[in-house]
Structure formats: structure tokens, C-alpha cells
């Protein structure tokens, strides 16, 4: 669908293009509303382009993404 283009393959987000959407995505109802009626720069994905069913599968994928490691366990970040 192209979510990765702005939000990354793991939904981590990217500063210039889109916020983090995983792990722990918004509840599905909110998520769906956001995708259909996005604020600001995100394009709207209508039902004829992406059905509610397929949106649910995307949501499930976002839920399945594991939490990131803690900063303290990553020397490249914690020593900075």
C-alpha cells in the first residue's frame, strides 16, 4: 500500500515524512479513521483503494512488530 514509504518498513517513522506508527499502533478504529481522513500531508486512502479488511491486516502487522531495545543496551546511543 505504500505505508513504508513514509513510515519505514517497521513503522518506525521518519522525521521528514511521517510519524512512528508501530509498535503499539493506535486502536484500529482510530487508525482507520486516520488513514481515511488524515490531517496535513498524508494522502487519504479511500475504501475503494484499501478495504477495511486489508487495513485490519496492516494493523495486525503493526501490532506484531516487537518493541525496540532500550537505549541503555545500545552503546552507540547510550555512550553518546
Amino acid at each position, binding site marked *: *500500500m505504500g505505508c513504508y*514509504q513514509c513510515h519505514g518498513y517497521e513503522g518506525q517513522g521518519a522525521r521528514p515524512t511521517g510519524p512512528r506508527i508501530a509498535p503499539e499502533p493506535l486502536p484500529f478504529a482510530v487508525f482507520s479513521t486516520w488513514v481515511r481522513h488524515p490531517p496535513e500531508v498524508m494522502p487519504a486512502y*479511500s475504501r475503494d*483503494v484499501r478495504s477495511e479488511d486489508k487495513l485490519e491486516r496492516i494493523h495486525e502487522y503493526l501490532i506484531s512488530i516487537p518493541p*525496540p531495545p532500550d537505549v541503555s543496551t545500545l552503546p552507540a546511543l547510550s555512550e553518546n
Partner: protein
Amino acid sequence: MANRREFLKGIATVGAASGLGVASNPATSDASTQAGQELSAVPPSSREAAMEGERPDDDYSETEAEHYFVDHPGSDFMVDVVKSLGIDYLASNPGSSFRGFHESIVNYGGNAKPEFLTCLHEESSVAMGHGYAKIAGKPLAVACHGTVGLQHAAMAIYNAWCDRAPVVVLAGNHLDATERRAGVEWAHSVQDAAKLVRDFTKWDDTPMSLAHFGESLVRAYKIAMTPPMGPVVIVMDGHLQEQEIGSPAPVVPDLSPTVPPQGDSGALREAAELLANAERPVILADRTVRTAEGMARLVALAEALQAPVVDRAGRLNFPTNHYLNHSGRARGLVSNADVILGLELYDFWGNVNRMSDLVHREATRTARADAKLISLGVNDLFIKSNYQSFQRYQPVDLSIAGDAEATLPALTEEVKRAMSPERRAGTAEREATLRRAHDEMRERAKVEATYAWNASPISTARMCMELWQQIRVRDWSMVSRTSQVSSWPQRLWNMDRHYQFIGGSGGYGVGYGAPGAVGAALANQEHGRLSVAIQADGDLMYAPGVLWTAAHHHIPLLSLVHNNRAYHQELMHLQKMASRRRRGADGRAKIGNVFEEPFIEFTEMARGLGVWSEGPIHDPNELAPAIARAIDVVEQGEPALLDVVSQPR
């Protein structure tokens, strides 16, 4: 012609007897010397000495010698002028319209100061000059055909124009139609060579004599280096290059550098009053700082005001680890500010307004309606009509024309003068709040960097931080832009020296990245700095031959290819268009935008161009050791490239 030749012979004979030479010499530009003290720009070889004095007794008749030889070609004088300006490099790929100049560079000039840098595309030559100037603080020269070469160079000249970078372009041409050989020389001749790029150069000229050339090149250099800086073009006529210098021999004019203009003192006082009495002042800096002193000046102003600074990243304007750097809080700061000071802002309007990218575009002001806006910069001093890089008009309360870096000390003094004891006490409170907010901003960025840390393709945060771990203990310089990797270096690295970041292309013309980095690395080389670049994959493919130039000239540069296998910005644009039209969520936006089937093998390409390379690297855990190996290569004085298969942004 015979008379001129006789005259020059006479000069040479007298010179040989008296130790004097002709006026065509860099020494003539030095006020302490007078025309005619030495002939050659470098110690002459025995052959040169012979040419300059008594020639071997050969059997050429006078007529034959005149037919075959030119003893003092005009392009020698042109080289003298270039040398007088302290230009260290000439970036070029060869062209017959400046063959005389080329020969003078390598033989008469000894291929030193300037040294000929063998390039494989004129766009690369100019972009190298663009990157070089931002580190060296002065231009190099580019030589190209006035026709086909300048057309290749045009896009890079536009980038340099937008980015306010000085580049001196020397364009070969054959103006006199009766002197042109049939065929190529006609195709490579033009009435007005510089017209092609006149819309986006500061100045150009087509000299009709060598004396004219000397004056115009020195003037061009002066103009290029006066803020707002920019590229200039001087046309080198083929006839002038290849014929005898003539008499009287022209003299190289002295360069009179222009002191950068400072803002009006009354206006600065007014600005200081506004800033000193503001509750929530914000400083926005873009192409502001070009020296260490400039950065110190901006820090002094910010500290005097206890005002947060948002670095818009046209250059590295403000230390990223200073508690007053709040670049990651731009939106909130601007929307709450009561006074906004813009320093050399490329786009003031865009900093205080937003234009939605929806079907119906709507502009909304993001700054408070009552916020006072102050502009200090040189943008209003030089502007042209056709290309719209000047951005949308923004009314401001106080517009001060002046070079911001040069003006900052005076502004800071006025701020200190305007600050009442009560105000000073208020800023102390502000300092505590800003320190806390800065620390929180940096800690938040660290947490954000953990997401997708172990992902493959490799996250841009991981790529940047693995690089940072290894360069942080060295004297380093980031010579590529960072916005395509979510600006992680600005968010998490400690960048506190002006050369540690030099901005991007300026005109968003793809193809600047690789040659710009090579040019900047060239300038860093003499300082022993480790130059690093995060190189966009699509950008590299515009003119990858610059990798060969880096290898050939032993220019040390570590490039990490941010290989997201796409013109990714355009991919997002196309997806937006498809979604807007309710179609194409099936991946068809990839058509025309992605580099698949086959993937581009950057490692093989780099190796083929003589550059040490490893990759493609998919596993983030393999990145650190690969970077270490690459740094070893770079620290031995060679370029190295790592192909990192990475997340989009």
C-alpha cells in the same frame, strides 16, 4: 605578427641578459613587485629556460618558426591571472576550445596552484567546486567548453547559485568566425556563451583582449566572493589563448577583496530593542555561518538573549550540543514566538507559514499574527527574475540588508546595551527552561533512534550512529546533506565546528551529492580531517565517474551509500498522486521510481572506478566492522565506499 615576434624576441634577449622577463607573470599582481621580474610562474625546467632565453640553434627560418611556434601564448598570461588569485585547483575534463589554456596549466604553470583535476563530467567539476568552496572558503576554477561543456555544467551552476557558493567557471569559445576550423569548432562556438547560465550566475564577461581578460577574471573573483556569493563565468576566447601575448604585455591587476556589507547601525539598534524586550524570541539561522568565528558570534548573540536557535541547516550554524540549539522544536517555538530573527534565511515565508499539499492548496501562517519578524541577510542585495529560487515574499517588520556573519558582533553589542537589569534576570529564568528542553529533545531523539534498530534494511538512525561511534574521536567533517536520513546527525551527533556540516545542493538538483562531497573532501584533506558522506543512491548514479576522480587524485572520503533503491522522494510523490486519484495502492507507484531488477551493485561500480568498497550490507551488525575497515582506507589517503541497503528515510 612578425613585428610582434621581433619585439618579444627583443624582450627575451634583454631579459636573459639582465635577469628580467616579460610582464606576463603572477609576480606582477604583487604590489611589492613590478612587471617583468620573472618569466615563469614556477622554477623553469631546462627546456623552459632554453625557450625563454637562447633557443637551440636549429634550422628554422624566421617564416617557418613563425608558422610552427608560439613562444609566449596568451593562455600563459591567463594562467598568471588564475595564479594571482590563489586558486589551487582547476576541475575540468578536457576540451579543444581551451586546449591552449590546458597546456599552459600543465606546462607553463607546472600543474600546481592550480592543479588540473581530471573530471569526467562538467557537472561534476562545478559541483566539486561547490563543495570545495564551502570548506575552503574560496573558489576553485572550472574549465569547460562554452557550448557543450557549459550545458553539462549548467545544473551544477544553478545549485551553486541557489546555495550561495562561489565557483569560477572558465568557458572556452571561438568568437571570431573567420578563425574557426570547419566542423567541430563551429559546433563548439557560440555568440554569447554565458547567456545560457546568466539567469543563475552573479556575473560574466567575454573578454576581447588579454588585458580585458585579466581585469574581468579578477573582477569576477571579487564578485563571486562578495556576499551573497555565487558562481561567475569568464569566457576564454580560443584565439586569445593560442596567439602571442603581444605587446605591451598585459599586467595582472591586483585583487581588492570587498569587505562584506554590515547592517545599518540604526536598524540594528531597533532590532536589538525588539529582541531584548521579547518574552519568547527565536533565532532562525540558515546560510549564516561560514567560519569558526561566525559560529562563535552566533553563540554569543544567542547567549546574550538566552534565545533558542533553530538551525535550518543551510550550513552548520550552531553547535548541536549547545543548550540553546532547539532545532528539533522549530514548529512549537515559531508558533509561540513574539519576535523571530531570521539570519540569511533561504525561505523566510516558509518558516512562518505553511502551504498544504492537498488538492486545494491553502496557506496558513504558523507564526503568531502579532509576532515581530526581523530579517538580517544579503538576499535582498542580489536577486534575479527568471528562476524562482528566491521563494515567496514575506513582509517583515524590519528588513536589514547586510551579511549576517559580519553583522552579528554589532547586533550582539546592541542587544547587550538594550538589555535592562530586569530583562537580564528574566533571561536567567529562560536559560533554565531552555536547558531542560534541550536535554529532553536530545533524549527523545535517542529513544526514537531505537525503533527499527535491528531492522534490515538498515535504519537510517543505526547507520548514522554506527558511523558516529567511530568518527567522534577524530577530526571529522560531514560533507553530505542529512535530511534524507531524518537529520540524525544534527539530532544526535555533537557538531560544534563550522566545517562539520556544509548543507546540501541548494537548488535540489540531483547529482550534487557525490561530486560536492569529493570537492569538500579535497578541501578537508590539507587539514587532515576525516571527510564522511551519506551518499544518496540515485544522486550517485547521475555522474558516478567522480569516484574515479577521487581515486585518481587520492582524495580521502568515506561514503556510505544510503541505498534505499529508489528515487524515494518521487516514489512518495507518486503514491500521493495515486491516493488522491483513488487508485494505485498496488505498488504501481514504483514504476519509474525504484532501482530493482536488477539492483544497482554500487560496490562493483566503485571498485571498477578504483575505489575501495564493500557491500551490499544488509545486516546492521555488519556495519560497524565495515566502517572500521573503510576508515582505515580513508586514513591512508584514499576514498572508500560502503553500500548500505537501508530504510527509506
